């Protein structure tokens, strides 16, 4: 272990001696790769003057289908989800096991990340205010997809002999298809997904996060970190390294405890900022609705706004990507449906609450001063919107962004690891290799430009929703049967509240 720290130290020193132009060199080397992957995955169909990426269509059709097929479980299950999280149905005999609340909190801190602060700004910049409407709608529909994938994650999880459990799409794809007599296809799909989540973890859950954390740090320090991306990257990588390889659990534990409070703190101040701009709120809201259906000034009009909104929503709440299903699999319950119902709350918290609040902060600022952000994009744009009211806000926001990024990276390092162990087995040596690769990408994320990073992350993450959603279609009847039986037993009083 010590030796690894030395290697990092030596790397740090040797890089210092040759700092000039490093950022640029790495950037120009990765940009073409990124745009190539982006083009392949985001194959676009031109319709009515807009460019519709096939994957976005794939996700939306899936979400709409599951919403109808499950009879609007996203509305019906909402109250029950809150009862479950509150522990009303918790069996006192399972004291000390993972609770619904804990599984939800862990999954939420994996999804609440830079996307909620920076991704929304990207959506509004590219898709206009109307993108927000589609973002919220996508969050609502995504609740149904999450329900299906998290139920399956628990139902088909793997319990190892030493008592640890792991599950996720790779396991339900393999077992689910094999139960339907398609063993070979199931194996292929499981492997496809595992490769996707392992590589995708390096993008959405890694480079995008560290990149935006660096951008925000640089902008609050007044550009003092210009060209020092590699240094920030190495420091971030070292901290991630110390948690996931060094096993310094205290850092992870502290982060997991602070993140929920940061999220509340963020929402609270966002609401204050919105209220301070209350006179522009009606205009901002009407811009959202008008923009959603007219798409004024947006490439591709209303359809363009819709595509951008959907794309950012999925990027933020991860519905259809299957990552949360990995986090939820740890709950020991006899009713997999309960985990699915609890997971409904994730897109709600992530997209419908937090993203909407961010969108309104930006929207009200745009109405008051259309050019408030200058050239700033992503997190920097959101930060500028806050800065109009509280000049000191960018500093705590940078801190929050750093923490969100960090907790998302920790969660995603785990998701990626599960893909890796599915492929290469549970050996400790293999796991260490994966973790080292993960840390290297953290550092890389701070060096390259936002554009290529977004392309790579989006592309890789959307790629894994292909096997996942295909599997969900096949396995949805199983979920529906369990859901109906569960609600029938609630109604008949067979499943009782303990509180």
């Amino acid at each position, binding site marked *: 272990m010590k030796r690894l720290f030395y290697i990092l130290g030596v790397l740090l020193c040797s890089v210092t001696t040759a700092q000039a132009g490093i950022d640029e060199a790495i950037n120009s080397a990765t940009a073409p790769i990124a745009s190539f992957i982006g083009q392949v995955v985001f194959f676009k169909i031109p319709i009515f003057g807009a460019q519709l990426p096939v994957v976005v269509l794939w996700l939306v059709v899936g979400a709409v289908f599951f919403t109808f097929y499950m009879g609007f479980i996203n509305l019906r299950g909402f109250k029950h989800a809150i009862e479950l999280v509150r*522990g009303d149905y*918790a069996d006192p005999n399972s*004291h*000390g*096991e*993972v*609770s619904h*609340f*804990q*599984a939800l*909190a*862990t999954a939420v*801190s*994996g999804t609440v990340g830079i996307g909620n602060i920076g991704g929304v700004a990207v959506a509004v910049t590219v898709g206009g205010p109307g993108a927000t409407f589609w973002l919220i709608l996508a969050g609502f529909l995504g609740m149904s997809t999450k329900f299906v994938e998290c139920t399956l994650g628990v139902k088909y999880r793997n319990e190892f002999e*030493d*008592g*640890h*459990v*792991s599950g996720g799409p790779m396991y339900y794809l393999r077992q689910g298809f094999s139960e339907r007599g398609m063993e070979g296809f199931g194996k292929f799909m499981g492997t496809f997904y595992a490769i996707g989540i392992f590589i995708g973890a390096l993008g959405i859950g890694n480079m995008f996060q560290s990149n935006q954390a660096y951008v925000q740090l640089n902008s609050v320090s007044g550009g003092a970190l210009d060209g020092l991306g590699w240094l920030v990257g190495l420091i971030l990588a070292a901290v991630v390294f110390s948690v996931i390889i060094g096993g310094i*659990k205290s850092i*992870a*534990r502290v982060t*997991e*405890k602070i*993140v*929920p409070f940061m999220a509340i703190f963020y929402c609270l101040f966002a609401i204050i900022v919105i209220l301070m701009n209350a006179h522009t709120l009606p205009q901002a809201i009407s811009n959202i609705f008008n923009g959603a259906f007219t798409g004024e000034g947006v490439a591709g009009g209303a359809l363009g706004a819709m595509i951008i909104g959907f794309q950012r929503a999925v990027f933020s709440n991860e519905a259809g990507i299957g990552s949360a299903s*990995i*986090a939820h699999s*740890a*709950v*020991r319950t006899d009713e997999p449906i309960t985990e699915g119902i609890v997971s409904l709350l994730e897109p709600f918290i992530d997209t419908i609450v937090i993203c909407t609040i961010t969108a309104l902060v930006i929207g009200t600022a745009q109405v008051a001063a259309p050019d408030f952000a200058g050239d700033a994009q992503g997190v920097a744009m959101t930060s500028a919107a806050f800065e109009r009211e509280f000049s000191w806000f960018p500093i705590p926001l940078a801190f929050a962004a750093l923490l969100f990024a960090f907790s998302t990276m*920790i*969660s995603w390092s*785990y*998701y990626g690891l599960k893909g890796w162990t599915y492929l290469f087995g549970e050996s400790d040596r293999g796991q260490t290799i994966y973790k080292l690769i993960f840390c290297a990408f953290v550092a890389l994320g701070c060096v390259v430009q936002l554009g290529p990073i977004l392309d790579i992350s989006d592309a890789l993450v959307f790629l894994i929703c292909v096997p996942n959603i295909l599997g969900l279609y096949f396995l949805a009847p199983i979920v529906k049967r369990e859901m109906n039986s569960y609600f029938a037993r609630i109604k008949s009083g067979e499943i009782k509240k303990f509180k």
Partner: protein
Amino acid sequence: MANKILVALDGSDGSKRALSAAAQHARLTDSDLVLAYVIDWSPYSFHTPQELEERHKRRESEIQRANDSVLNPELAALQAEGIKVETVVHHGKIAETLLELGDQQGVSQIYIGRRGESRMHTMIFGSVSAALVQTSSVPVTVVP
């Protein structure tokens, strides 16, 4: 039916003194003993995915440890004396869980050792024995 007395154990010296006082009480009144070990735990805490994965395993080993190193050694000696003893290990908020266990077992008395935490510690984390005294529906004996 004999009276039941609940004793809160955590392996500390204070809890051992509480046990010897409770055992004396049991001998004199011919009561049964319930030895309870509560592991501090909240279902509303935050964890990393790695910790969730290992939770079940950790829970088993926590229960095992409580039984092996704290409850079972006492159990043998008391049973040799002819006192009827039960043991229970439970996760939860300590004071609250002790009261629930007492209710379930129908105990008529609770014994707990005083931890003697500093004033600062008590101010921040509260005192288990004080919380018990305040909320219990049966007599509580706090042994110094």
